[in-house]
Structures are given as C-alpha cells and as structure tokens.
C-alpha cells in the first residue's frame, strides 16, 4: 500500500515541543500555548500512569508520535512484538504525525539505544523500503523518515543521503521529516553544503521539521578540527536557526518540532523556543514572499 497524505494536521503549523515525562502534569495544569506535542512512544510503553496523562493531553492538543526503537534499518528485521506495543499506543493517541529515523538500533535481538548510521547502498534501500512498507501497512498511516545526524559514513555507499531519501519516498510513498539541526551538524562533520542538501530533498514529501541542540567538541579523528555532536541537551544554535529559515522557504510552513532530551529545562523555556521558531518561520516566509512578489 502506498501512503501519500497524512490524516489530521496540527491546527497551527507553528512549532511544537518534544513532550518529556517531567512536563506531563505541568502541561495539563497550565495548558501552554503550543500547537502540538511530540512524544517518543517507547517512553510510555512501560509507564501506564504517564500514558494516562498523555491521553489526557491528546484530548486537548494534537500529538505527534516519533518512534526511536522501530529500527527500520536493521538487517535482522523489524521486531513485530515491539511494533504491536507501539501500535496499541498509536491507536489510542491517534497522532497527527507518525515518524521515525533512517537508522538502525537493533542487532540480533539486542537494542543498542542509539540511532546508528547506514551505508547508502541498493541493499540498504531495498531493506528499508520493505520495512517502511511493513510499518505503514501495520500502522495504517504514512511514516515520516528523519535524516540522521552523522559523524561518519561507509566506504561502500553508492549514493548521497538526499538521493537515498528521495528513492525511499519514490518506492514507498513515505514522507520526510527534515531535522534541520541534523543537516547543519552533518554538513559540518561530513563536509557537505547544508543548503545544497536541503535543495536536493523532494520538497513535496517534507511534512515536518525538527530543531534540536548540539555541542561542539574536538574531532579526535582529525586533530585541529571540531565535530558537532547531537546531544539534544542545549538550546538551538544560531547557525541552525539560519538554516531553518532557509528550510522554511524551501518546504513551506510545515509543522516544526523543538527537541530537548538532556538537561531538560523548565517548560516555559521550551515554550519560548517554540515561539522563537514561529517568529523565525514567519520572518523567513515574509521575506521570501516579498522577494517573490
């Protein structure tokens, strides 16, 4: 089955917030001005109380479900038991968006708790296309694929990342989640042009943007150079904001998500970043419109 459109959309295509456990009760109490929340389902599967709070939030806000454990790039296959657990939650939440990563996390039954890189080869393409189709058929909704944050590549890759993502869209009808911070970070680490990367993505397939924090550290593989490491533990860097404005003009006003997974600040700080993203997007779109007119 080919999925081509999402169902419900967030009522406001501003910037949502990654909803983490410390903020569940506060969101219900304070009802912050946020267009949608995004959750990692794996956080809730073993926590019925948190799930209860999440469902109350889902009654008030659009919710996006962003999987971190589906591991569509795993050569040892998808874990059907895990997918069934996630599906039960997804069916309860009825998310506006449903997404995951171009990555692998499992090997022979082990879960490695990371989003690991893939070689961009025909073998990988065939495998991911099969798995994406299985996911979309199982969940009966389109799957948005997020571009990875990269520190390294593989000698046997035969295509670029945008070529790989475009081929997946073409073969499966999936959509794309462009993590702008990941593009910025990967461009720095792997030495490609971030704007050219965004230009090369199939714009009509991009239905969500992500922004998260990263940190700079010395590149141990190349003395004198630096690496950007995807920590989701800081606020968003100026360079990522600038690239976000460019992405918005390329992809239009699609939903944006502010991610924070470490050193989680008070909810108000995330709401402020959400409003900041909305301001950046509005300014970029206005300037773009003025140039076009």
């Amino acid at each position: 089955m080919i999925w081509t459109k999402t169902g419900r959309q967030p009522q406001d295509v501003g910037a949502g917030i990654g909803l983490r456990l410390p903020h569940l009760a506060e969101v219900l109490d304070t009802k912050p001005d946020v267009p949608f929340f995004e959750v990692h389902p794996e956080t809730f599967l073993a926590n019925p109380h948190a799930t209860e709070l999440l469902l109350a939030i889902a009654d008030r806000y659009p919710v996006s479900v962003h999987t971190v454990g589906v591991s569509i790039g795993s050569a040892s296959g998808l874990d059907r038991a895990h997918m069934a657990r996630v599906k039960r939650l997804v069916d309860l939440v009825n998310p506006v968006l449903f997404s995951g990563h171009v990555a692998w996390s499992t090997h022979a039954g082990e879960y490695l708790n990371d989003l690991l890189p893939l070689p961009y080869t025909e073998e990988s393409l065939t495998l991911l296309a099969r798995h994406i189709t299985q996911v979309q058929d199982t969940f009966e909704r389109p799957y948005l694929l997020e571009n990875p944050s990269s520190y390294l590549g593989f000698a046997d890759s035969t295509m670029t990342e945008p070529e790989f993502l475009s081929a997946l869209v073409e073969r499966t009808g999936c959509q794309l989640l462009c993590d702008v911070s990941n593009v910025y970070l990967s461009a720095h680490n792997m030495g490609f042009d971030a704007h050219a990367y965004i230009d090369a993505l199939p714009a009509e397939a991009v239905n969500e943007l992500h922004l998260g924090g990263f940190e700079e550290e010395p590149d141990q593989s190349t003395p004198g150079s630096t690496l950007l490491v995807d920590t989701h533990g800081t606020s968003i860097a100026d360079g990522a904001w600038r690239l976000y404005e460019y992405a918005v003009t390329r992809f239009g006003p699609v939903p944006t998500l502010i991610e924070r997974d470490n050193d989680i600040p008070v909810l108000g700080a995330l709401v402020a970043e959400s409003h900041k993203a909305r301001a950046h997007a509005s300014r970029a779109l206005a300037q773009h419109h003025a140039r076009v007119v």
Partner: protein
Amino acid sequence: MPELSDTQRLVRDALVGGDFQTVRPVLIGGGDPTRRLAIHHRHYHASLVDALRTRFPATTWLIGDAAVTAAARRFVATHPPRVFCIAEFGEDFPAFLAAEPSLAALPYVQAFARLEWHAGRVSVAVDGPALSLADLTAAESVDLMSSAVAFQPGVMYLTADWPVDELLRVYLSDQTPPEFQMEPGTMHVEVRGARGDLHLTRIAAATWLFRRCLQAGLAIGTAAEGALDVDPQFDSGRALIEVYGAGLVTRLFLLNPH
C-alpha cells in the same frame, strides 16, 4: 563489499565490546573514522549506565554512586538490552550486583535492588475500579472456591531473606536513622503502587501465599489450601474479605473446569 548484516555486526561489536579495528575498513570520515564511531560507543555506554543509575536510585544511595556506576559499566558491556523501552532495562542488574566481589560484604544488595526494581514498576501502574465487599456479598450464589479473581496491576508479592523493605522505607523517608540493624530472616512483602504512590506492607506467610496464588489466577479454593498448608489456623473467608476490603480485586470469575 560486506553485506549489511556483516557491517552491522561489526559496528555492534565496536559499540558494545570496543573492537574498533575490525570495523575500520568499512568506515569513512575524518582521518580515523573509528574515533568518530567512538561517539556512538560513548553514547551506548553512557546512556545505559545513566539509565541504570536512574532506575536504581535507592541502590545507589545504599552502596554509593561509584559502586553502582562501576558495576553498571561492566553490566552494559556484557548485557546489552534486549528490550526496546529503556525503562524496562536492568531487571538482571540486581543479580549482577550480587556477583560483584566488591559488594560481597553486603549480602542483601540483590534483594534490595530487586525490591527497588519491582517498586519502580508498580509505582507507575494505574489502578482499575475495585470490587467492594458488597460485590463479594452479592456473589454468594457463586461457587467461590472454584472462582478466581483479577488483581490490580500495581501489586507485587516478594520474599526476601533480609529486611530490605524496612531499608527501602528508610530511603523513601529521606531520614537516615542513627543506626540500622540488618538481621537475616524471611520477609513476606506486598508491594503496591499506583500513579506515583508506593506502599510496602509486610504480611504473614500464609496471607502472602494466599494473595500470591490469587494474583496468579489460581482458584480461591486452591489458594486457600496452599495457605492452610503454611498455617493450619488460616481463615480463608476472612482473608478473602480482607483482599476485597483492600481494593485489590477488579474482577471475580468462575474458572473453566476444563
């Protein structure tokens, strides 16, 4: 060109076991891409060690952060998660701690960590509507001895050879007593939680077995027989009333004789 499964096995071995040289030929990135793969290696170990420290705060209080962190580092290098929810990772950690030579002087560590594991699990449960004593009375026409009950999800029955329930209470009270004696002896504990609350109740051995059997779905009559084996004075009628009175039962149903 290696197959994808081979590449992923090599990356896995680098992440978990630290074998970076075998995977090096397939990687690119910087002067030495294995130094960049080390970022994933670092994340694997740091995130899982942190997950264990988060999952076992009372055990960390008991034996110290350095001891838990050192044991957790060895644990994640030899016991990669086989669950996809990191909150479910670490069920085997109490047994691993018990085998740590540096903790040999603390024979109750495993029991304490095991109690903490289950306490954390039940404390996030969500209670369902409980049947009342009036419901039990109304069921007088039912063959109770051949019936079974469903328990609330946030209940666990544990035994321990040390008073680890008392020790956990001390941790939860946030008040350190001037001294705490750990005298060995068999403890029967009901661990009950819901929506962030947690209660530890020490109960008699026969009561413990009766409730444990009921929770396991055995017939009330079978549970009563087991309890009577432990204590010939056990009053199963009163015990059943107490189970209902405590709000533990969510459903009463006749077991299929087949």
